[in-house]
């Protein structure tokens, strides 16, 4: 095949990540999957499940303690970009590929040959993997300054194509920075997507289309005023490819653009500042946008007829809030959204948040009267009879955004519960609940009798935003009407 050169990968070995059978974290960043399989990347590692159906019991597997970037799924394989440095705040960008075969649980760990930054004069060339897709039985990885790298499943070899170039060869044995093209915004691959026949690659200043059959590159007409193209999603609508692009104009806030490949026209919807975009069925477009102190979900209806994007009747996060309040008390921050088909061609709509995963399988996300979302969060099973209780978290601190703590306890039988807070001298601070009925813990609730919307303390003297108590160690007492008692500690460092 002209323009293709096979090279050996620098490193190809077994993965080093330790496995787990628990949900690793409630702070979930990214989602991807297909069928009954859903992959999640969180602050503590990667989780996946093959039982994401209507069943309330979801069995999670995972790999702990490594820093990952959005997963890509296809052909029974999952590709996750990782870095060796687990500390998120110290790590740079992903420089490793981790490929997992769900069927036989085999793993491969791939280091790209050009994964290290190269310094050329005043510039630093980055060759890390920025985005990936599964297309035509292969992974396609957009590498910043490294072109479009493709590999089939867990194959031992890969191929590189470079935007706008012909026959650019990289070989690990002859690796030389001089072989790389000079840094240019029009070849700096950021994101990748595909339609029925083409692969779309956004570089900072261009949107490329790559035909994998003849390995040719073409560019589309630029959108007016755009200075940087960022994320891209593509889908077919009535035999026409439509691309949704997050881009910024004049180096300012991001905007959502839409490109019709049939008419070669751009349209712009600039009401909000998008962070990510996700395509659902029936021409819906979901977007996570940056609001003042948070991020929110916005829903658009895409119509091909007039080449526009229209706001749907339920145009903001209210539609979601009505469906999550049954399972979570406080507001959440949506980090990612995902649609996937699962058995019987139903759709799963999932939201990755900082307080766990919400998902729905029986209705569209925008239906205000829809059934409540199912909620998956990390919950350590508790023993019955108040043997072990927790305040989660044990330290209330503004900086950690933990301005309330929740009491986790497990009653051996249905009972009435009182929870009180005392200071170091055992002087009473506040009564959280006073002889309220609670159910015995069950496996369905991870052994919790807790009702999160009631069994919490916000560190104030009235548990309702009043005077914040002085910094120090406080004690909680959980007491049942039948005589059981448990004590625990909470540290308050709020201001």
């Amino acid at each position: 095949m002209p323009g293709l050169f096979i090279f050996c990968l620098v490193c190809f070995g077994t993965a080093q990540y330790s496995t787990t059978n628990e949900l690793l974290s409630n702070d979930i960043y990214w989602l991807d999957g297909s069928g009954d399989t859903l992959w999640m990347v969180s602050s503590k590692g990667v989780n996946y499940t093959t039982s994401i159906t209507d069943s309330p019991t979801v069995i999670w597997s995972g790999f702990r303690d490594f820093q990952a970037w959005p997963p890509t799924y296809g052909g029974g394989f999952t590709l996750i970009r990782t870095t060796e440095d687990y500390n998120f705040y110290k790590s740079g960008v992903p420089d490793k590929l981790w490929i997992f075969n769900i069927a036989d649980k085999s793993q491969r760990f791939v280091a790209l040959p050009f994964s290290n930054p190269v310094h050329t004069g005043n510039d630093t060339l980055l060759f890390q993997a920025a985005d990936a897709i599964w297309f035509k039985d292969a992974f396609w990885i957009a590498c910043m300054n490294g072109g479009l790298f493709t590999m089939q499943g867990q194959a031992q070899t890969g191929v590189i194509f470079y935007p706008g170039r012909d026959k650019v060869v990289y070989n690990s044995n002859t690796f030389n920075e001089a072989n790389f093209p000079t840094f240019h915004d029009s070849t700096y691959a950021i994101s990748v997507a595909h339609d029925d026949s083409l692969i779309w690659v956004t570089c900072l200043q261009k949107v490329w289309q790559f035909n994998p059959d003849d390995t040719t590159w073409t560019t589309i007409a630029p959108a007016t005023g755009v200075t940087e193209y960022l994320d891209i999603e593509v889908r077919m609508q009535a035999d026409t490819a439509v691309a949704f692009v997050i881009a910024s104009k004049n180096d300012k806030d991001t905007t959502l653009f839409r490109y019709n490949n049939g008419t070669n026209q751009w349209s712009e919807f600039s009401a909000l500042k998008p962070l990510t975009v996700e395509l659902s069925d029936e021409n819906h477009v979901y977007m996570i946008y940056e609001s003042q102190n948070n991020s929110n979900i916005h829903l658009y209806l895409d119509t091909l007829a007039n080449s526009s994007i229209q706001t749907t009747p339920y145009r903001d996060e209210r539609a979601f809030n009505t469906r999550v309040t049954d399972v979570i008390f406080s507001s959440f921050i949506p980090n990612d959204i995902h649609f996937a088909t699962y058995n019987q061609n139903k759709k799963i709509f999932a939201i990755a948040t900082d307080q766990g995963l919400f998902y729905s399988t029986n209705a569209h996300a925008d239906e205000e009267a829809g059934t409540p979302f199912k909620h998956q969060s990390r919950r350590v099973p508790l023993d019955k009879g108040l043997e072990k209780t927790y305040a989660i978290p044990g330290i209330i601190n503004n900086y950690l955004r933990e301005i309330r703590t929740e009491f986790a306890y497990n009653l051996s039988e249905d009972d009435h519960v009182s929870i009180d807070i005392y200071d170091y001298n055992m002087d009473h601070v506040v009564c959280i609940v006073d002889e309220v009925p609670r159910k015995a813990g069950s496996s369905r609730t991870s052994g919790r009798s807790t009702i999160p919307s009631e069994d919490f303390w916000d560190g104030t003297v009235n548990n309702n935003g009043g005077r914040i108590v002085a910094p120090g160690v406080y004690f909680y007492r959980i007491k049942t009407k039948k005589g059981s008692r448990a004590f625990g500690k909470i540290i308050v460092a709020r201001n």
Partner: protein
Amino acid sequence: MERSLLRGTKKTVIYVIIMMTLITVVSTSAVGIGGYGGAYLREPVGATAFALGGAQSASPQYLCAWWNPAALMTVKKKSLALGTGYRPLGRTEGYLSFEFPLPPRAAIGVSTLYRGIPLIKGLVDEQEYPLEDCAYATYAFRMGLSYLIKRNFTAGLNCSFYVQELPTGYESGNVIYSSATAIGFDLGLRYVVTKKYALGFVMKNLLSTFNWEFTGDFSPLFQDTLPATVTLGHEFKGSFMERPLIWTCDIVGYLFNAKFRSLPHGHVVINNGVEWQKWELFYVRAGVRDVEFNRDLFKNSRRYKNHLTMAITLGCTIDLSKALKGKDMRFNYGISTDKVGAGLDQQLDFVTTF
């Protein structure tokens, strides 16, 4: 003539105490003192005071700088006290005091107190991952000066330096600590009405504010101004079964903070204790501490009963002075309920004068 005058003074004092108590109780809030800063300073210091229910402001036997600096004038010899304590839920403490007279009109006392939880286990982060074991520590250093104004009237002043170290954050399971310091002052008066009756008046924690600086950038500064306390105490020396009996009582008001601003929820507690010197070598004590009085007593008696907390205290002293001629040595022990049913508080100390 003199006796009738004394009797009249005593009646007046008792009448004033009762009236002050009633007025304060009626005007104070149903919400308690819990949640204000300096909670670790409210527990009595010293096994004797501990066993007497924390009622020692009129005539403390030692650790005068803690109770009433004006009472330092009762120290006739150098006095050294060393003690320790343990409370449920991991709270421990240790204290040391040295007091000495400066004849003819002054006395000085210095003391230090550690209170804290040396091992806090079982904390988890928001993901329910365990945090490393950590500790909470407080240190208080206090120096008091007493001055004899008149034969039966003394005044005193304390200056205190406080330190707290608290786990305030975490990262990757490791706990991050913050610390804060404060300086505070106490003012004390002591009036000996008769040989059997003494009154004490103490204002504590004046100008005491901890300045916390927490980890992070979310307005990390926090000023924790302690509540000031106003204590009126008395000591009555009588007899029971022809053996000496001492009754002590403190009324402690939490009405304003260390910067003299009224507290949102004023509050009063009453402490009472008796000491019976049944034997020369062995004294017994009992008391009731932290009996909360507030307006619920009259307006919502059910709620008052439900939230009424108090500590029952017991204690004893083994006085070796008689056995060891020429050496004044006492071992004091105190034990108390903890108000919430978590266990028993205990203090043990050793006092000698030389």
